[in-house]
């Protein structure tokens, strides 16, 4: 009874204490969210009404979204599960219905594109998906045909019900790859026995009966989907690179393939290029157009026409980068993009049936200086009032950028879909303003005469005054406008540090190899830089070598990109504020790189030294000036590094020698047959711990074990059986290799998320015994006395720390885990938990405290310890992103700000969300709703009251004196 009262009291106290949610008028004031969809796989313009403003996109991130073409914002978005089961195989659009095949032919879905609602969903029979197509009948599109490896099925477009399902003949030898229909009551399934023959089966739309089966010899053909298209009235057109000829086959007749050598058309293929055919079928109920594109080289396309079994060249486009067909009403046009010069491309429309150039259809596409090349072209054509064709164009670039433009080249919006796949990020302080920098520079320069110094000081003070007046004027001007109208223009010129350093530059590295510099206050992309030739499976490591604190030296960031296949690494050195590549040439790295290490020592230009360890365990330094090498020689005996190799289960520690080679100090081998290393986590370098101990109830101190070299190694059993699986935590000193603590969580398995900070480690695992998610916390203490309070050396720590551990049940699974970070470490810590629902939970570390008592005593109450309860609460006011969910949150980045109470948080995944958190509330800031008016009016009132009463008192005294 007493305990329940106490816990009740505690919860009331906690409720009051941690109510950290935002108020309604604070929404969007300190935070922003950007939503992305991912690299576009299919994009279709909504054409069913002339004035439509939608483009539908299915992406490689398993997202189906509709984007408003006026603004570029997402109208709606559906995020499917990750991995192959949510993979979007096909997107078909007819009228208001978008039909998707999802998960290798597992599901067939129809969406209403206006509101994004699901019309219907059908679970299809198993079998790997090959192709899908609309099937028209009697001049209207009524069915969807889905071709799988061994079967073909026809579904009603209106409700998804299966009309018929037929097994494909000889499906074990024939690879069916395409389905074709032209609205004449037949559906063709086109199959191929590679390098032997083509197999064509025609089904009746009505009942699925096989009308005919044809075998056509084609010993040269190895892939139907890549080499063949259907053009005109059911003519299969294939291209063969070996014989350099086109082959045609009429599907309606049981004929042989006709060979048309390209030489007869006077065409030549670029050496080593695989020709590509492109055709278009504007209406599924009608046959495709007889015009088609043939690409003969990287910059060479031809518009051809099939006429009476003869191929006629309508127009030769050379150079031409990309081509595309677009249809509006009855008109079909061909759009051709050609490079104009190194920075711009032109897009011109041609009439598809004649190859005639359409007047006034030139559009200039200016490529970004550090962007990728255009990769795909999507044309939205429409009929103007005078019946001529107008168009807008969406260009997809190599760097996953979508640019939407209208004539004559006005960019309406761009979407940086690369940001849906952020790999790593850093936050860098913004530089001082020009005037501030000038002031700083004044102190840095040598004195050149008293008079000039005075003049210089006066002039700089004057400029400061001017800047301040300008700032005041802007404040006054903005204050009159409502907040929504205040435009936050962020340009290079206005980028400067604010007084509390709350605005920073976010440097984001994406998997596509595109780097972004984003202003953390508004989310504006300040700069972007696309790195070409970044391999698909590259590993990235971003390091800040020089911050903005060393004016006039520019800040400097270094990105290490390592190709996982070859092991070779490349360094990209750039200025994090402007994104410009540095003029410093990074060293070329001929050897495969294992790891890198950023040392706290600096060269004469204040750049931190980066050490790179190659596969021979030799070390190279960047920058490697004489000064640096000398410093390294002096410091070598205190520089250590560790490497974890999960493939061999090996952890090893090395020491740097003066000749920049290394010496193996220790080695721990975890047998790979039993367990595998998941990850190794050290502490963050920029973390400060204010308090060296914890005050007990009897006012003695329990000192924290703050080993900066401590590593947390997480292992998981290779045996997945729930009875024998386990998760292991190994706390190991990275310098000496001494195992400080070893914990094994039996009957548990991953995914494990871990945070290692101060003197604690928090990790989350799945308990397969109790079938629930559990949090566990480990805290390390030195005891009641400090061994050495002035220096910490791992080599001189004879005592093993005390380890305390406690576990809790967490009601949901989690996606990511991170801890808040503040400037001085005075503010209490919170854990930021990214949940699969997209919410980000700010969980006080106070709840994860192994000293939480089971029985409440006077002392534990004195310490403000919450009584132990196995269940971890989740309160909705702890969600720092209220309803701004972050889809598929993959990482959270925290950075300290200039205010001790405030920590900047960026959550990234499919979306990017930036906000501030105040783990101990804003103890150093006046409240947002602080009543300045009341306080100042009271102050003024009191002031005047004293003045008046003083006067009155004088008068009274005088009167009394007269009496």
């Amino acid at each position, binding site marked *: 009874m007493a305990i329940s009262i106490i816990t009740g009291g505690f919860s009331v106290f906690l409720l009051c204490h941690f109510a950290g949610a935002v108020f309604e008028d604070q929404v969007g004031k300190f935070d922003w969210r950007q939503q992305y969809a991912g690299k576009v796989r299919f994009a279709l313009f909504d054409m069913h009404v002339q004035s439509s403003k939608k483009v539908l996109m299915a992406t490689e991130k398993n997202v189906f979204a509709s984007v408003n073409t006026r603004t570029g914002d997402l109208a709606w978005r559906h995020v499917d599960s990750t991995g192959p089961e949510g993979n979007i195989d096909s997107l078909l659009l007819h009228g208001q219905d978008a039909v998707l095949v999802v998960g290798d032919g597992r599901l067939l879905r129809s969406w209403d594109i206006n509101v994004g609602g699901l019309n219907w969903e059908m679970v299809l029979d198993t079998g790997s998906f090959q192709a899908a197509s609309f099937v028209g009948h009697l001049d209207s599109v009524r069915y969807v045909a889905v071709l799988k490896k061994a079967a073909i099925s026809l579904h009603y477009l209106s409700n998804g019900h299966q009309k018929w399902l037929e097994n494909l003949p000889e499906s074990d030898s024939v690879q069916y790859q395409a389905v074709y229909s032209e609205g004449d009551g037949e559906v063709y399934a086109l199959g191929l026995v590679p390098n032997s023959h083509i197999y064509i089966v025609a089904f009746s739309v009505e009942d699925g009966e096989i009308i005919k089966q044809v075998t056509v010899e084609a010993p040269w053909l190895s892939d139907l989907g890549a080499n063949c298209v259907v053009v005109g009235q059911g003519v299969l057109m294939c291209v063969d690179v070996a014989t350099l000829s086109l082959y045609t086959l009429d599907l309606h007749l049981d004929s042989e393939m006709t060979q048309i050598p390209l030489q007869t058309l006077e065409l030549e293929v670029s050496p080593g290029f695989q020709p590509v055919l492109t055709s278009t079928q504007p209406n599924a109920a009608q046959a495709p157009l007889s015009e088609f594109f043939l690409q003969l080289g990287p910059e060479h396309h031809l518009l051809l026409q099939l006429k009476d079994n003869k191929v006629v060249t309508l127009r030769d486009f050379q150079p031409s980068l990309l081509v595309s067909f677009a249809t509006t009403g009855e008109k079909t046009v061909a759009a051709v993009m050609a490079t104009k010069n190194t920075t711009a491309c032109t897009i011109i429309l041609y009439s598809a049936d004649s190859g005639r150039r359409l007047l006034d259809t030139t559009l200039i596409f200016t490529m970004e200086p550090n962007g990728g090349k255009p990769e795909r072209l999507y044309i939205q054509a429409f009929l103007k009032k005078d019946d001529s064709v107008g168009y807008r164009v969406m260009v997809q670039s190599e760097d996953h950028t979508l640019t939407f433009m209208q004539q004559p080249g006005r960019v309406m919006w761009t979407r940086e879909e690369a940001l849906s796949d952020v790999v790593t990020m850093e936050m860098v302080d913004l530089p001082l303003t020009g005037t501030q920098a000038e002031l700083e520079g004044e102190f840095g320069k040598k004195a050149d005469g008293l008079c000039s110094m005075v003049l210089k000081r006066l002039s700089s003070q004057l400029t400061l005054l001017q800047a301040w007046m300008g700032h005041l004027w802007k404040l006054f001007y903005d204050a009159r406008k409502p907040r929504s109208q205040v435009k936050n223009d962020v340009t290079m010129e206005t980028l400067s540090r604010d007084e509390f350093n709350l605005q920073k530059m976010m440097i984001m590295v994406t998997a596509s190899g595109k780097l972004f510099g984003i202003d953390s206050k508004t989310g504006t992309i300040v700069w972007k830089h696309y790195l070409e030739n970044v391999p698909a499976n590259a590993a990235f*490591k971003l390091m800040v070598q020089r911050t903005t604190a060393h004016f006039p030296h520019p800040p400097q960031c270094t990105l290490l990109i390592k190709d996982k296949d070859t092991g070779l690494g490349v360094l990209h050195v750039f200025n994090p504020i402007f994104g410009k590549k540095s003029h410093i040439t990074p060293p070329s790295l001929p050897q495969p790189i294992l790891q890198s290490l950023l040392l706290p020592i600096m060269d004469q230009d204040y750049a931190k030294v980066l050490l790179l360890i190659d596969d021979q365990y030799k070390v190279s330094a960047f920058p490697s000036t004489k000064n640096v090498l000398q410093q390294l020689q002096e410091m070598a005996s*205190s520089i*250590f590094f*560790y*490497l974890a*190799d999960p493939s061999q289960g090996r952890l090893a520690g090395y020491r740097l020698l003066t000749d920049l080679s290394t010496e193996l100090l220790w080695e721990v081998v975890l047998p790979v047959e039993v367990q595998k290393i998941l990850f190794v986590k050290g502490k963050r370098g920029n973390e400060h711990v*204010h308090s060296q101990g914890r005050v007990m109830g009897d006012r*003695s101190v329990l000192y924290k074990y703050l080993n900066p070299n401590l590593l947390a190694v997480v292992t998981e059993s290779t045996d997945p059986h729930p009875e024998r699986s386990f998760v292991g935590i190994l706390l190991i000193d*990275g310098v000496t290799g001494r195992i400080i603590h070893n914990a094994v969580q039996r009957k548990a398995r991953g995914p494990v998320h871990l945070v290692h900070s101060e003197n604690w480690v928090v990790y989350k695992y799945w308990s397969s015994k109790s079938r629930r998610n559990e949090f566990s916390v480990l805290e390390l203490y030195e005891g009641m006395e400090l061994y050495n309070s002035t220096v*910490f050396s791992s080599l001189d720590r004879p005592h093993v720390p005390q380890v305390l551990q406690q576990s809790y049940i967490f009601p949901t699974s989690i996606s990511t885990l991170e801890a808040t970070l503040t400037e001085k470490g005075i503010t209490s810590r919170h854990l930021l938990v990214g949940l699969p629902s997209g919410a980000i939970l700010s969980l006080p570390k106070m709840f994860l405290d192994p000293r939480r008592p089971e029985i409440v005593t006077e002392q534990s109450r004195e310490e403000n310890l919450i009584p132990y309860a196995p269940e971890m609460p989740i309160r909705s006011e702890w969600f720092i992103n209220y309803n701004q969910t972050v889809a598929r949150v993959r990482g959270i980045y925290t950075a300290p700000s200039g205010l001790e109470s405030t920590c900047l948080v960026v959550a990234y995944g499919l979306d990017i969300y930036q906000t501030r958190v105040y783990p101990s509330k804003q103890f150093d800031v006046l409240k947002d709703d602080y009543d300045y008016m009341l306080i100042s009016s009271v102050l003024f009132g009191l002031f005047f009251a004293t003045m008046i009463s003083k006067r009155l008192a004088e008068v009274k005294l005088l009167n009394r004196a007269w009496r």
Partner: protein
Amino acid sequence: MTSPGGQGGGALSTRGGAGARRMKWALELSMGNARSRVDRQGGQGDVVYPIGYSEKPVPDNSIQETDKNLVEKRCWDVALGPLKQIPMNLFIMYMSGNTISIFPIMMVCMMAWRPIQALMSMSATFKLLESSSQQWLQGLVYLVGNLLGSALAIYKCQSMGLLPTHSSDWLAFIEPPKKMEILGGGMML
């Protein structure tokens, strides 16, 4: 600003009732009364000193022996004052408890401040005790009393937890230890 005549007029008018009696002569033998009146009115110079009045004070030696005893007693009173307050303080201490709130803090402050103040003005007290023959003993008693009072206050502070006697009180001043080694690395990239 104010004229003496006006004031005198005022004084006259207030004594208008008694004026009739004063017109005749009166002899006041009470010395104190007379002096006070003379003093008050002497400045105006319009009053004649009464009979038997001497401008010089007359030394009075008749009561010196008893005075000495009285002074001694008075000095002991002063010297024992702080000691006498201790039981009272103990009672207040007991009543106010060990919780940290405004009233116990005020009590403790008062209790600590009073002896300190007394010790500061020790020389003034000594001057007071100058006339006593046991001046040094009294001074010592006075000092001990005050020291006891302040010790009591310190004990109270201690029991309230206001004294920085625990290691936790100095925790905030411990600097983070300097790192001797530089460690880096991680999983193989």
